[in-house]
């Protein structure tokens, strides 16, 4: 009986997408430690819809996967029957260079998007620490890098999206023009939803021109307060920085604040010199003008397969206090914590190696939550070893009224809770 039903679901999946695209899941296919049953490899919207219709009919719980670089991020899924592997859905469908717009299937790597855009002197202004990351995964997790300071986050650059709903229905929102207010902008809702509202199969992005010249202006300081002052100096200048990042490899170590400027030849260098002098005037340390980004630039202080990775948010003016709070929290527990991120926006990433005591890490998260809350922010555990995941809610508290609306939204899009159940906030 059991076997017959299971067999029926498998047979239906094979019929929908082709036997050669369906296999039993292996050890490498786990989703945050949870073992799925099958992996279906799909090449785009049509096959995704076909697979999702079968999943709906047979009540299968589905997690979509691109390159899998962030498959362990978020809360632990309750269960996964089917991993929908979109890595075959890799194609730049359209690059309208004159319109600075690019349409790609969800499994396309960001590296490939950048390669194609660069041929026309353009870029998708979404920096990715994991170069293999795919369009779909980047949208689902809403991950960006330093350039967000000037160009905006994923949600600001996404102009159109195709999503297959939990019931297998194909839907789109937005379009291929940047300026467009027709209908609800569901792209924003899907961005950062961790695959819990539907399966992203295609996206249209706004591109920006690649600048001719780049400079980085860096200052290294020992005190969090001074680092906060340096960040403020850059932010409040008229230098129009592309990014304002900070890096501190050890809890008590030196803090580097580094601004990225880009633009026309010569002009950019001149702006960088001016900014360096301005920093000298405000924090008493002259900025060093670099013609290449420092090696840590745009990377997480944790890996896609190691470490506890946190995202810390605070209001931007509190960045110095946040750095100080992070230092204190790590020192209390003698944890080797590294912190890095978009200081100009009030977003930092923190990393603790796997060797750290899980109980101490969980305790650290609680303290960081208290610190960030004080500055209007939050501390989210992006990824962590199982021992840490087991003891902390990765998302932290969310105000009741807003959470109610989130639950209602989930219930509308995925009434049976079959899309990565448990992975998102509040058990969604």
């Amino acid at each position, binding site marked *: 009986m059991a076997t017959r039903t299971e067999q029926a679901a498998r047979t239906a999946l094979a019929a929908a997408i082709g036997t050669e695209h369906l296999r039993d899941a292996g050890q490498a296919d786990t989703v945050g430690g949870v073992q799925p049953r099958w992996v279906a490899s799909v090449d785009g919207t049509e096959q995704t819809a076909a697979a999702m219709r079968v999943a709906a009919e047979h009540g299968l719980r589905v997690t979509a996967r691109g390159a899998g670089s962030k498959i362990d991020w978020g809360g632990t899924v309750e269960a996964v029957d089917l991993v929908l592997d979109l890595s075959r859905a890799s194609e730049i469908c359209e690059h309208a260079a004159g319109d600075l717009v690019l349409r790609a299937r969800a499994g396309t790597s960001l590296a490939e998007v950048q390669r194609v855009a660069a041929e026309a002197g353009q870029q998708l202004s979404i920096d990715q620490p994991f170069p293999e990351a795919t369009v779909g995964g980047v949208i689902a997790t809403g991950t960006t890098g330093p350039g967000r300071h000037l160009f905006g986050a994923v949600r*600001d650059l996404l102009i159109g999206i195709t999503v297959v709903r939990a019931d297998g229905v194909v839907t789109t929102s937005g379009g291929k023009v940047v*300026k467009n207010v027709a209908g609800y902008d569901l792209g*924003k809702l899907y961005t950062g939803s961790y695959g819990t509202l539907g399966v992203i199969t295609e996206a249209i992005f706004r591109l920006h021109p690649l600048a001719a010249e780049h400079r980085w202006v860096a200052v290294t300081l020992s005190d969090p307060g001074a680092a906060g002052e340096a960040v403020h100096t850059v932010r409040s200048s008229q230098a129009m920085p592309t990014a304002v990042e900070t890096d501190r490899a050890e809890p008590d170590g030196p803090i580097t604040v580094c601004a990225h400027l880009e633009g*026309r030849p010569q002009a950019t260098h001149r702006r960088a010199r001016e900014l360096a002098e301005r920093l000298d005037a405000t924090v008493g340390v002259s900025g060093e003008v670099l013609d290449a980004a420092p090696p840590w630039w745009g990377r997480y202080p944790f890996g896609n397969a190691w470490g506890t990775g946190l995202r810390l948010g605070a209001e931007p003016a509190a960045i110095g206090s946040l750095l100080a709070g992070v230092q204190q929290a790590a020192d209390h527990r003698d944890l080797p914590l590294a912190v890095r991120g978009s200081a100009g926006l009030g977003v930092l990433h923190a990393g603790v190696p796997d060797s750290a005591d899980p109980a101490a890490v969980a305790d650290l998260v609680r303290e960081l939550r208290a610190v960030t809350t004080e500055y209007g922010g939050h501390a989210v555990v992006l990824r962590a070893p199982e021992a840490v995941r087991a003891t902390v809610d990765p998302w932290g508290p969310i105000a009741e009224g807003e959470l109610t609306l*989130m639950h209602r939204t989930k219930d509308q899009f995925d*009434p049976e809770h079959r899309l990565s159940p448990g992975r998102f906030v509040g058990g969604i």
Partner: protein
Amino acid sequence: MVANGEQSSTLHALIRRFRDALAPDAVITDPQQLRTYECDGLANHRVVPAVVVLPEDAEQVRSVVRACAEYGIPFVARGSGTGLSGGALPHADGVLVVTSRMRRILEVDIANERAVVEPGVINLDVTRAATPYGYYFAPDPSSQQVCSVGGNVAENSGGAHCLKYGFTANHILAMEVVTPDGELVELGGRAPDAPGYDLLGAFIGSEGTLGVATRITVRLLRSPESVRTLLAGFPSTDEAGAAVSAIIADGVTPAAIEMMDALSIEAAEQAVHCGYPEGAGAVLVVELDGPAAEVDHTFAEVQRHCGEHGAFEVRVAADEAERALIWKGRKSAFAAVGRISRDYIVQDGVIPRTALPEVLARISALSAESGVRVANVFHAGDGNLHPLVLFDGDHPGAAERAEEVSGAILDLCLEHGGSITGEHGVGADKVRYMGRMFTSDDLDTMQRVRCSFDPENRCNPGKVFPTPRLCGEAPGPRRGVHPLTEAGLADQF
């Protein structure tokens, strides 16, 4: 449906509730006074609301919305009423919630580059409050001297400078909203990336169908070190369009790049004497901003591109007064058309910018075939067209012909992969075109968001969507056993 008598007694009870909660003069029921709210900026749609309320704070908005929820009465929020799609068109049996008494700027927080405002605050007043500190609020719809930030949020307003700086959605950090069931909810937060669904992003641009914003945290931008503006006259829109393409292809992102054709230049000239180049078949207004070193360099390139593509006159604004004069012609274009035509429709379509020459040729052919004059004003950098379709309402059939041409222009936009609205919104006016741009599945999916906020469809009903989705009881999570388990597959799943 309720019987008339029952309806009016419900309304009376509701009005009593309003009078208890609001100031005596904040509940309007006098028919003459109600009539002043019968339309927004789109005057050809008119509906007199049953009652108008003028709440002074979030708590009052909440009590109004709560009462509406209790009595099952629809409501519509309205800011300054400058919208051009009938988004704030009242409901005949409903309540119009006007935010014009909620005009406090609650906080200007320069250290965090933001301001907290009430929804009725005028767009330009945000910039005025930030200017002393060297900051400004980027969204700048042409109506910025009168339109409200709450209205900007509802419509996700753009403006001439959104080519470089984006729309309202890119400049709102957090909001307090009253949901249709009368709850006060915070969306977004003081820090970026608040965990959870981006409900803030979904709310902005939902045209007042998801609730009423009562407190809005806006992002302030550092004023640019340098702003340079030029006006270039071209023989025709073809040359002007080619110049735009050359500028963009050169990797320049101007703060704004606007085009007007001969007819709209003529209208602006008559209305505001902006002194645009004589004999121009098209003018471009190009503005660059940023660090002086960058702007100087790029500005020279823009001038060169204009020259190389047939500009017969390029005028550079020497000071703020000259800059204002250049912009005056452009910003007054809609109103100015009233000088050359008694009636006109302001259209708002979008095309991929590269399709501009073809679409303009087709619009011109449409105009010639139908005998309906069309003046073109547009945000050339992002392909947002504002064709002004002229007609004389006294001539029988003229309005219908104009409407036909206007609709055909939208079809042209869609044919070229564009949109039926770039910044004015769908509102009441373009509901009928939504089905041409989206499938019924797309619209159904969007309305799932609506169902999660407003399952009873009482919040600005009849806008955006041609057919309301029945929300029903959300099926909710499956509480019981998994079907495969139930069918005997046991615990593998």
